[in-house]
């Protein structure tokens, strides 16, 4: 195990931020830590990195206990903070070189790594720019370049895409997959389920300081009782067609509100064609129709009774 966290408890006064939190990450994994804002993701990372004191529990990285002075362990860690952590007064190239220099003292050995990180994050054209002159997306990329230039074995990324444009977001996500392909183990926190689904080999869902679900994307979705969801735009004030829909064998619920019909089918079931046939037979006119598989939000909703995004 690259990361082994056991029974971590962290309190801020009366608030329990981490409640018996445990997590393990194997070598070469991209583990997504998914949860709404305030669920304890950043606190878990800070405790893991020995930045925060905690009341109970153990943290082992690369099989050794993590301590503030465990410099041999720290040498193999790269961190990308939630908030951009760079010097405003140093240029892009100087920033990357500075942080890489904290890990690799030899200037000649450092130079190609700095260049590689700048190129990998698409910052080659901005190497002489000061951070204040960069857009939000470029600044996030610089934040990442500073965290990965020394080629760490474990990369911890705490919501690295908050507030960035779609182009930069794609660039960042592709970059993470490349780092993983290069051998790095990645711990990736986010409250964007799409990102986590896109890049993570395993996902841990957090709420109120605990891991409430852990598995691959498919495993988690199988935890949800519901299957496919069908949404239909209907142009009828009469709700008589709903009774027939609810009697269909694969349908577990059917609701209509504000001209939108939402039909949930049982796990593994598919009711799209049946729903449309039923509406036709009832003479209900309909417009847009779309169908979707259950999302991680549905899993979260089913376990906690609330939405991931609503909290964030």
């Amino acid at each position, binding site marked *: 195990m690259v990361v082994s966290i056991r029974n971590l408890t962290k309190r801020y006064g009366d608030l329990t931020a981490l409640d018996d939190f445990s997590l393990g990450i194997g070598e070469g994994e991209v583990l997504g830590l998914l949860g709404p804002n305030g669920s304890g993701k950043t606190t878990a990372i800070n405790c893991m990195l020995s930045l925060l004191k905690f009341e109970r529990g153990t943290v082992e990285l690369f099989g050794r206990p993590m301590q503030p002075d465990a410099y041999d362990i720290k040498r193999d860690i790269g*961190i990308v903070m939630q908030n951009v952590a760079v010097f405003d*007064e140093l240029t892009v190239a100087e920033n990357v070189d*500075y942080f890489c220099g*904290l890990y690799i003292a030899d200037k000649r050995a450092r130079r190609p790594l700095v260049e590689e990180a700048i190129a990998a994050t698409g910052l080659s054209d901005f190497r002489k720019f000061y951070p204040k002159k960069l857009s939000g997306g470029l600044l996030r990329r610089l934040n990442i370049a500073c965290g990965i230039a020394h080629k760490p074995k474990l990369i911890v990324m705490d919501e690295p895409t908050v507030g960035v444009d779609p182009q930069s977001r794609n660039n960042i996500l592709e970059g993470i997959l490349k780092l993983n392909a290069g051998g790095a183990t990645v711990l990736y926190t986010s409250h964007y389920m799409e990102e986590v689904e896109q890049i993570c080999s395993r996902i841990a869902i957090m709420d109120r300081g605990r891991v409430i679900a852990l598995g691959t994307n498919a495993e988690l979705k199988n935890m949800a009782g519901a299957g496919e969801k069908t949404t239909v735009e209907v142009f009828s004030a009469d709700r008589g067609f709903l009774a027939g829909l609810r009697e269909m064998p694969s349908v577990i619920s059917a609701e209509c509100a504000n001209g939108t019909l939402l039909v949930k089918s049982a796990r593994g079931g598919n009711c799209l064609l049946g729903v449309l046939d039923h509406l036709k037979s009832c003479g209900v006119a309909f417009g847009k129709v779309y169908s979707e598989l259950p999302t991680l939000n549905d899993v979260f909703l089913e376990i906690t009774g609330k939405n991931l995004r609503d909290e964030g």
Partner: protein
Amino acid sequence: MFGHIFINNLKALVRTKEVIFWTLLYPIALATFFFLAFGNLASAELFGTIDVVVVQDAHFERSTPLYAALSSVSDLDKDASENDVFRVALADADTAARMLDEGEVSGIISYDGGVRLTVSGSGVDQTIIKGFLDGYLQSQSTVSQIIKDNPDAIGEGLIADIADRTGYVRENTGGNPDTTVIYFYSLLAMTCLLAATVGIQETIKVQADLSPLAARNNVAPVKKFKLFLSSVSAAVLLQLVIILLVLAYVVFVLGVDFGPKTGLVLLTCALGCVTGIFFGTLVSAAVRRSEGIKYAVVISLTLLFSFLSGMMYAEMKYIVQQNVPLLAYINPVNLITDAFYALYYYDGLSRYLTNILLLGCMGAVFAALTCLILRRQKYASI
């Protein structure tokens, strides 16, 4: 590693506009303001030789005592030198009146049985002439009274004693004291203490609960002490260069004379800067609050120290020294200004050395406490 952190922090500090403004440009602007405001103050306090004209008539030539008195403060037979109080011209009454009208002299002294002074206005020169003549009349009256009451005293040399105008004040400074220098000393002391803000900035870079940058620094495989020492060293170097630039500006551009003890002035500046920086680092390490609160504490304490050392109310320095002497010795601002005062006003170095020793010890204590607090610090919240 030390050099890598040092150079990059130095680069960052030099490029921080706020640092350059508050520690370099602001003191230079203030020094320029002082120079413009107080530039003429020193020259106004210097008294030049005063031109007077004595009406040379039969009455004056009979008045030997007046002639003798004027001779004691001027050289009636030659051109006046820098040390003479009066440059005396002898002229008839009409010429004397014309000279007064044309402003060639500040007053006319005439004698017609009694001494008379004619002036065309009021001012320092006129007051000095009047003061001199009042003194002369008082001495003459005293002598007359002694002759009347105790004629034997003449033989005992009493008259000679009364006429003797020997000064009893010994000059104790290296030169003519220039009071405006004190303003510039205060300015330099303030510049030294302003280094505390840079100290806060450098400490925040290793306090993970205060900035993401510090959190990233803390995750790196570098000892916190090394990180702190190298970035503070960069701050110290920058502040030393800045104080030298301010001093060079004050001395070479504004032409302010700091006396002959330049080396000791530089030593005081350097030690003041170092103590100022470690004052900032200690406050930053000890006050576990936000950056804004740390700055507020440093600025409030600096203002309090400055007030207690007499920067806003000169008497306060003496009040503190008389009533709470310990407070004077633990106040870094007071130690810096007092070191400057001691250099300027005293020939001996004992008072200066006391100040400088206390200041050095204070800086060392600040540095040691900072390291002790920061060492292996983990945080309850970030």
